[in-house]
């Protein structure tokens, strides 16, 4: 998908004025964080499990080449095929050629962020193959020709009336007078329509939450069961996964699964956790006849050994965005590409480059909540700071900001001068603003005063008060 991350500021502005979106986001802010908090409080070992999860992933990343080769050997031994893809274009072509060889006309899809990353649906459609999203949220946004706005709840930006409108518009063969006001009716209608698609599909495509080196297994985690019907019924199961999904053993997967659903939806465990190894065996009652894994790099190997390597621990739970004040205010579409929120603010520049994405690592208050809830303890604020440094080094920020920061840096390196000037500024502004206590507008501070008042200083700087022995608010 084409990134609009360069327009983050105007995207965010539009999002703040979008009433329906704000209504939907209010539900998100009230929902996910509370559910996570309850689930975590029921598991006293949660903090230790986070450390353990981080250590497992760090171990894998340090030996990723070895584990990938072992994983491939085991997939092959189980009768499956691993296809390596350097770029989205290579990954798309691999999937298309599998579909063509099998004469596929429709493919069902479980939710996959990699499919979004490589823009698979457009490619299949352009080549005469109909992709059908089967996760309810993904299905809704596919009908609306929208991108997901959240990595685990893709239609979280919509209210039910919008879904009803879309269903009435698209499902024209159904009774126009049917009742569709409640989510229950909408879910039932999608179930009925998608059931036929599951039964008719030629190829089923899913993502993967984990790839297990020990056994050559891919794992998906869902609540709906759509990923299972997607992979069990068609002729072939195609798994889309990026390199870093590897874990060594079944026990390692079990350890990280304890973190995943609790961090995501606040469940102890998601409804369906499915381990798939190769195609249907001789004597099996059901299952797909072929099993393929497309392993995507797309810039990830270049992150290893850098300050951004930790990002590859991400298990895509969405906790960082569920707790982010910026995401909570503007929603996922403002971020302009596949991955929103704090994890997107790091991953998007990592995969697309900082040039067109420089606003994202700036879209943070640095409150630190994302890192504090991340099950893999990824230091997201630190990495956003690194990207801000790169933005500066590459001279990507606007001239005015660079001049301002340059001037500030000049004084900051000269503490005496800095304190003297700060003292003068505090006195002058304090005197000017004494009557109102704040300013409607200030020269050079328009970015602040355009949307809120600037409080007036009260005459002395913090440093001056500290030196004169003031230790508490007067």
């Amino acid at each position, binding site marked *: 998908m084409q990134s609009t991350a360069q327009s983050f500021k105007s995207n965010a502005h539009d999002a703040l004025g979008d009433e329906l979106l704000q209504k939907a986001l209010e539900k998100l802010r009230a929902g996910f964080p509370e559910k996570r908090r309850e689930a975590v409080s029921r598991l006293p070992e949660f903090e230790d499990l986070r450390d353990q999860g981080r250590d497992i992933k760090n171990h894998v990343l340090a030996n990723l*080449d070895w584990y990938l080769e072992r994983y491939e050997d085991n997939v092959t031994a189980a009768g499956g095929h691993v296809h390596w893809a350097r770029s989205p274009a290579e990954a798309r072509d691999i999937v298309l050629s599998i579909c063509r060889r099998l004469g596929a006309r429709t493919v069902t899809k479980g939710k996959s962020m990699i499919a979004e990353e490589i823009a698979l649906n457009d490619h299949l459609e352009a080549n005469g193959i109909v992709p059908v999203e089967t996760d309810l949220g993904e299905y809704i946004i596919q009908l609306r020709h929208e991108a997901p706005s959240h990595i685990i709840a893709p239609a979280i930006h919509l209210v039910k009336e919008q879904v009803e409108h879309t269903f009435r518009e698209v499902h024209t063969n159904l009774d126009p007078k049917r009742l569709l006001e409640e989510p229950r009716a*909408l879910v039932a209608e999608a179930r009925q329509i998608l*059931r036929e698609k599951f039964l008719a599909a030629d190829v089923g495509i899913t993502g993967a939450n984990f790839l297990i080196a020990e056994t050559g297994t891919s794992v998906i985690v869902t609540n709906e*069961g759509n990923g299972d019907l997607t992979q069990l019924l068609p002729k072939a199961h195609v798994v889309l996964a990026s390199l870093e999904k590897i874990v060594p053993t079944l026990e390692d997967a079990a350890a990280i699964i304890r973190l995943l659903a609790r961090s995501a939806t606040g469940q102890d465990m998601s409804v369906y956790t499915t381990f798939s190894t190769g195609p249907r065996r001789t004597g099996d009652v059901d*299952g797909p006849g072929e099993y393929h894994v497309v392993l995507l790099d797309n810039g990830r190997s270049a992150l290893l050994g850098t300050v951004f390597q930790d990002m590859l621990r991400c298990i895509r739970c969405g906790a960082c965005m569920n707790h982010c004040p910026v995401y909570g205010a503007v929603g996922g579409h403002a971020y302009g590409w596949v991955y929103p929120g704090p994890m997107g603010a790091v991953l998007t520049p990592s995969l697309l480059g900082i040039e067109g994405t420089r606003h994202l690592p700036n879209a943070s208050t640095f409150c630190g909540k994302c890192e504090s809830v991340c099950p893999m303890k990824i230091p997201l604020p630190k990495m956003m700071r690194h990207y801000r440094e790169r933005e500066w080094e590459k001279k990507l920020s606007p001239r005015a900001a660079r001049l301002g920061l340059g001037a500030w840096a000049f004084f900051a390196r000269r503490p005496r001068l800095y304190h003297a000037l700060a003292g003068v500024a505090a006195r002058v502004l304090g005197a000017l603003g004494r009557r109102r206590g704040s300013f409607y507008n200030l020269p050079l501070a328009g970015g602040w005063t355009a949307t809120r008042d600037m409080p007036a200083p009260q005459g002395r700087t913090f440093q001056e008060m500290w030196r004169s022995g003031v230790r508490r608010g007067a």
Partner: protein
Amino acid sequence: MIAARDQILHDIRNSLRSGSRVPPETEAQLEARLKNHPAGLIPRRSAGLDRASLLALFEAQVQMVTTTVARVKSLADVPAAIAEYLTSQNLPAEAAVAPDKLLDAVPWSQRPLLKLKRGKPAPTDQVGIAAPFAAIAETGTMMLLSGPDGASTLNFLPDTHVVVLPARRVVGPMEDAWRRLREARGPLSDAANMPRTVNFITGPSRTADIEQKIEMGAHGPRRQHIVLVEDDSLA
């Protein structure tokens, strides 16, 4: 294809170790780690419980995900328990049954009105009856295997998922379920021992994709019912 594979592995090695492979001593450690597959931290909730506490934890956890449980003494009680459940839900007395040894041993003929079909389900079947390989008390999860005696589609296509579970199959954490599978089958690193599909199922299908409101029966079963068989002679 080969070019992509080689380049990706080459790029990873360049990033990690200036191009070199994993050194032999590390490789020996990695091999040992896979061979021994050590379990990590097991939460106290599910570690070292006796049978009664395991079953109590299991029942509490499945009730949290709206699955219902009926306890019976022996396999002989299973047909009546299932027939009663189907009646209570206003469901027809018809079901697809997994071609499983345990389920074959159930004396179904005691309930001649129960119409059963052995094998994988048709899309129109409303009830599926399966037997898990193990059940996980920590999370209230059923572990079901594909194979000649297990149909994975049976866990997803019918509206109602009925599970016949001998009490001895209930374990504490997921790690214990894997251990039992390793004991029963041999090393799972050997593809012949690892089933094509291992389903861990915790409650009925659900979604919260519309306004975060939880609705049951998104694509898989709308309801799930467990018949827990206490008979200790059943493995």
